[in-house]
């Protein structure tokens, strides 16, 4: 596994807070990655108007794939993601991956719940499920309508929730869970949302697969900084099953930032 130069060939799905990039790496990516797998995407040269301090590598979920190329959907969350969003077709990035373990594809009546840029890996999952003849139901949430990524692209039924009511249900996306009975809940998004999703799934006897985002300095299972309890999120995850998180002492409680500095999550 090593960073491979990748050409930005296309930009689509713009919102005011982000968009999708299609990348064509110099080699690899002929085989289909698992939905839920991710890459470390690096910015080797700063785009116009940025300094070298934005050149870094950050984890991003695979949001789509065709033989030899892949899609990432990026939200402006800080210096590197902002600089990635400033890149133009023809610019070169570098990707390492696909990394980690993704979602299982063995649901019959799947429910997908995504928050913010949790949507991209779920889109890729939904496309795979649909391709195998299974119709997913998807719940997408965000603080505002522009935080809802890929709304038009999801196959099957899509329901929306926004914190500010700018689209769909006015409130948290987790409020749309009640009364449903899928055989499997797939979810990706902010950890507090995942915690609520897991609680709901456990309460209703439904299995869940949750895609976690943890601070990842290496992405390949060498450093251990991404650990949650005893699991390496970058290798054992990023998708972990309800049984792996049910008794966690850290899920939703302890997160780590650069250097492994602990931040206790707000309750």
């Amino acid at each position: 596994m090593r960073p491979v130069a990748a050409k930005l060939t296309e930009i689509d799905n713009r919102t005011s807070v982000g968009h999708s990039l299609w990348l064509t790496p110099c080699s690899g990516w002929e085989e289909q990655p698992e939905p839920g797998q991710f890459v470390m995407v690096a910015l080797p040269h700063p785009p116009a108007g940025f300094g070298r301090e934005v050149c870094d590598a950050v984890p991003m979920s695979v949001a789509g794939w065709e033989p030899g190329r892949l899609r990432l959907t990026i939200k402006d969350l800080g210096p590197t993601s902002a600089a990635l969003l400033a890149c133009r077709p023809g610019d070169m990035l570098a990707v390492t991956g696909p990394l980690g373990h993704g979602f299982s594809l063995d649901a019959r009546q799947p429910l997908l719940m995504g928050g913010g840029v949790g949507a991209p890996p779920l889109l890729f999952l939904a496309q795979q499920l649909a391709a195998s003849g299974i119709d997913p139901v998807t719940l997408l949430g965000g603080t505002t309508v522009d935080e809802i990524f890929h709304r038009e692209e999801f196959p099957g039924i899509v329901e929306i929730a926004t914190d500010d009511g700018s689209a769909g249900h006015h409130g948290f996306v987790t409020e749309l869970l009640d009364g449903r009975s899928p055989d499997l809940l797939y979810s990706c998004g902010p950890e507090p949302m995942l915690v609520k999703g897991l609680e709901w799934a456990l309460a209703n006897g439904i299995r869940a697969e949750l895609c976690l985002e943890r601070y990842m300095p290496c992405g390949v299972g060498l450093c251990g900084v991404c650990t949650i309890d005893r699991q390496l999120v970058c290798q054992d995850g990023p998708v972990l099953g309800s049984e792996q998180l049910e008794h966690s002492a850290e899920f939703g409680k302890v997160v780590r930032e650069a250097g492994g500095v602990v931040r206790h999550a707000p309750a």
Partner: protein
Amino acid sequence: MADMRVELAGLKLANPVLLASGILDSTPGILARMADSGAGALVTKSISLEPRPGYAGPTVAEVAPGTWLNAMGLPNPGLAEFLDEFDLQGGLVPVIPNLVADTPEDFGKLAAGVAGAGAKLAEINLSCPHPRAGWSGLLTAQDPAAAATATAAAAAHLPVIAKLSPDVADIGAIAVACAEAGAAAVSAINTMPALDIDTELERPVLGNAFGGLSGPALLPIGLRCVLKAVRALRDAGHAMPVIGIGGISSGDDAAKYILCGAQAVQVGTSLGGNPERLGEIAAELGGWMERKGYATLDAFRGNALEWLP
């Protein structure tokens, strides 16, 4: 079953296969997993007085199968938070904190800190392969006098293992200098400074440009360094143990270091993505001993030395 117990600077270890610093040791959770996997002892990531966020990525790149370049930049939360999070006293498997600093004074403060928290043994990282301006890692390891001063400052507070770099003209001289400064052991080697270039991007692959080489390609370099340190110490009349590090990915590799005279070994890169491999390596070493009819490590330690020119 072969008896794999070994004593290291007063610590009694169940086996000589230790977790190396910086690999799968950043949180108490992963350290517990490595302990259960069967480690003889656990060396933590390098801890500095103040937090260090680490370098910009890419931080790692595989340059040949299993062989990696890395420049993590010693990410760590700093001494205070480290002592808060990690238990250095309890635990069935000893935890050996690894310390990094730029001055002897800071090495002293770190050593005092971990000794105060109950550590019985610390490793001092004299040999970060990619120090930035103002960070003195590599330079300390290259200069016997600087290595000795840093060692003495830390050894005033608890027994220390001085961790050496392969990127020196004469590793034997550095090992002897550390012994004379009061080190309880030396460990060798840290990664080898190296560089890779992406020809498409026309720039270094890693965010920090330079990185450290680790994994299988390092094995023959590590074996040579350990053997040179063992011989130099012996010739200078020091009984101080040497811990072998570099490129170990099997029990057979571990046996190579012990045949070169190492007291124990540390394993890093080959555990990447595969934490349970540590215990397997220890078991393989035990299997090799049984097949060879060795009841203890002492029975074969240093056997290769008599074959040297």
